[in-house]
C-alpha cells in the first residue's frame, strides 16, 4: 500500500530534492562565479580598446590583439616596475616571516614575564590604521634619509605585516605538542635546533597563511609608494601603471592589460602556495 504522495509532509523541499550537500554545492558554484567574474572581465578588457570596452563590456575579445601589451612595453618601464615590486615585496615578506616567526616562537613556546603584554602589543598593531600616521612616517623617513628609497617601503610593510603574522603564528605554534619538543630535547637538540629542525617544518602551513595574508596587500599597495617614492626607476607596479590614468582621459584597455600583468605573479604564487598549504594541512601531526 502506497502513501498519498501529496500530503504536506511528503512534499520534498529544496533540501530534500538536492540534499544538504547539493545546496552547498550550488552556493559554492555561485560564489566561484562571483569571485572569478571580475578577473575574467579584467582579462578580457586587456585585449580590447577603450572604445570596445564601453561598447560591449562583457563581450569576447580578440585574443590576438596585443596592442595594449605592446603599448605598456613601449611606453613604460614595466620590467623595472616589476622588478621593484619583487624586490620590495620579497624583502618585506622575508623580514615579516623571519621576525614574525621568531617572535611568535618565543611568545608561543616559552613562559616569561611580560609575554602576554608583548603579544597584546603586537595584536594592538592590527587595530592601528597606519595610513593615519603618514605625515609622521614621512617625517621619520626623511630624517632617516631613506625617502625616495625602497628601504622606506620595506620598513613600513614589515611593520604592517608583523602584527597579523605574530598573531597567526603564535596561535599555531602554541598548538604544537610539547612532547615533540621534549623528545627533541632528549635527543640532544639545542633550543635553536628544536626550533629550526622540528618546529618550523611543522608550522609551514601557518607561515603560508601568514604569507598569503600579507603578500597581496603589499604587492598591490599604491599609497605608500606614491608618498615615499618619486624617482621613476624606483616605482612599484601599481604606482607605475598609473601613467595611463590621466586627469581627463584614461586608456582603460592598457590599464587592464597592466593590471593583468601585475596580478599574474600573485595569482601564480597563490596557486603554488595553496598546494603547499593543503599538503601541510594533511601531513598529520602526532598520533
Amino acid at each position, binding site marked *: 500500500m502506497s502513501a498519498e504522495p501529496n500530503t504536506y509532509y511528503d512534499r520534498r523541499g529544496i533540501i530534500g530534492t538536492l540534499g544538504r550537500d547539493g545546496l552547498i554545492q550550488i552556493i559554492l558554484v555561485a560564489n566561484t562565479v562571483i569571485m572569478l567574474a571580475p578577473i575574467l572581465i579584467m582579462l578580457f578588457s586587456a585585449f580590447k580598446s577603450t572604445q570596445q570596452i564601453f561598447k560591449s563590456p562583457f563581450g569576447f575579445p580578440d585574443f590576438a590583439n596585443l596592442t595594449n601589451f605592446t603599448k605598456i612595453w613601449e611606453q613604460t618601464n614595466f620590467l623595472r616596475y616589476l622588478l621593484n615590486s619583487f624586490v620590495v615585496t620579497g624583502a618585506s615578506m622575508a623580514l615579516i616571516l623571519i621576525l614574525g616567526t621568531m617572535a611568535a616562537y618565543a611568545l608561543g613556546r616559552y613562559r616569561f614575564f611580560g609575554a602576554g603584554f608583548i603579544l597584546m602589543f603586537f595584536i594592538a598593531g592590527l587595530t592601528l590604521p597606519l595610513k593615519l600616521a603618514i605625515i609622521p612616517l614621512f617625517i621619520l623617513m626623511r630624517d632617516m634619509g631613506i625617502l625616495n628609497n625602497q628601504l622606506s617601503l620595506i620598513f613600513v610593510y614589515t611593520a604592517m605585516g608583523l602584527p597579523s603574522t605574530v598573531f597567526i603564528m603564535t596561535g599555531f605554534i602554541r598548538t604544537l605538542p610539547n*612532547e615533540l619538543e621534549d623528545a627533541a630535547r*632528549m635527543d640532544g637538540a639545542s633550543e635553536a635546533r628544536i626550533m629550526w629542525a622540528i618546529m618550523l617544518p611543522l608550522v609551514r602551513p601557518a607561515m603560508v597563511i601568514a604569507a598569503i595574508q600579507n603578500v597581496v596587500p603589499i604587492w598591490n599597495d599604491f599609497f605608500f609608494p606614491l608618498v615615499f617614492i618619486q624617482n621613476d626607476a624606483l616605482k612599484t607596479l601599481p604606482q607605475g601603471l598609473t601613467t595611463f590614468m590621466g586627469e581627463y582621459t584614461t586608456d582603460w584597455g592598457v590599464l587592464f592589460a597592466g593590471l593583468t600583468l601585475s596580478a599574474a605573479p600573485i595569482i601564480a604564487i597563490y596557486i603554488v602556495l595553496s598546494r603547499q598549504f593543503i599538503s601541510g594541512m594533511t601531513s598529520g601531526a602526532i598520533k
Partner: protein
Amino acid sequence: MARLSLRGIKKSFKTANVLHGIDLDIGDREFVVFVGPSGCGKSTLLRLIAGLDPITEGEFVLNDQRMNDVPPSKRGIAMVFQSYALYPHMDVYENMAFGARLMGLTKPEVEARIAEAARMLRLEPLLKRYPRELSGGQRQRVAIGRALVRKPEVFLLDEPLSNLDAALRSEVRLEIARLHRQIGGTMIYVTHDQVEAMTLADRIVVMNLGRIEQVGAPRELYETPANTFVAGFIGSPKMALVNVQKTSDGITFAGGDTLALPRLPAMGDGPLKIGVRPDAWSLSRDLASPGIAASVVYTEYLGENAFVYTRLTDGTLVGVRTTPNELYEPDESVRLSVDPVAIHYFSAEDGRRLPA
C-alpha cells in the same frame, strides 16, 4: 651499568606540591614500574629523571654522579613518550637518525645502529615511511627504536601502551618484556594499568598523591600490601575493605554477624579494617548457615569465572569469585563466608597493615 638513586626528591609547580619526598633506589638491569592513579605524580617523577623538568629539592644520582643539573641528552637516558612524539615530517629512518647524529656519531655508526634497531623491532620494511603512514603499533615500535638507537643505560617509558587497542596492547607488552631481556638496560615504566605493572615489573612502585605507598615485587604487593591503598589498587576486582570491630576471639561485622578467628593482630579490642580478595570469599544461599549477611548487586560473567558483587549491611561492596555454574539474581539475600587465612588486617585509623 646503571644504578639510579632518588634521594628526597620533591617537586612543586608554583604553589602546588606534586611530589613530597621520594626515596628510591633502582638497580642495574631492573625493570621498575611506577603505578598509581592519575595525578599521583608518577609521570612527573619520570620527567624529573629524564631531566625535562627541574628537581625542586632532593638529589637524583645516576652511577654515583649527581644528575640534577645535567641536561637530558647527557644523562644516558632515553624516553618513549605516551603519544610517541615521532617527528611527523621525517621518515622512520630520519626519526631514528636525528638523535644518533646529535650524539656525534659518524655516518656508518648511525647506519649500523639504525640497522640493528630496525632488525630487533622488525622495522626494516618501514624505514622510508612517514609516521602518518604507520599503524599505532608500528609507531610505537619506531618510538622504541628511536630510544634504542641512542644506546641508553636507562629507558623511560611513559604509558607506552595507552594509545593501543586491547589486542595490540598485550602483544606490545610481550615485545617490551622480550626487549628488556635482550638488551638488558634498566627500564622505568609508568602506567596506571595494574595488569601491565604486574606482568612486566621486577619491582613495582605504587604511588599515590605524590608519595610512594609501597615498593616491592608484584607478588609481594599482592600478598602483603603495606596499606589499604595498595590493597585496593593491586588486584582486580578490588580487594574488599570492610570495617569491623575486633573482639577478644574474633571480629564483629556492622550487621552484628560475628566471625571467630584463630589469628588476630596484637591490639586491644576496637575498630579494625579487614581486606579480603574475591577468591577468599564464598557464597551460600542457605541463610541459616554461619557467615555474614549480604545481598547480591550484580553478576559479571567472564567465561571461566564469574564475579558476584554483593553489598554488606553497612553498604560495603564485596566482590566474590564464583564458578559460572552458580548464578545469583540481583537483590537475592546470601551469606558470605571467608577463608580466615586470607584475611589482611589494616589499622582503622591510618590504613597501615597490621601483622597477625
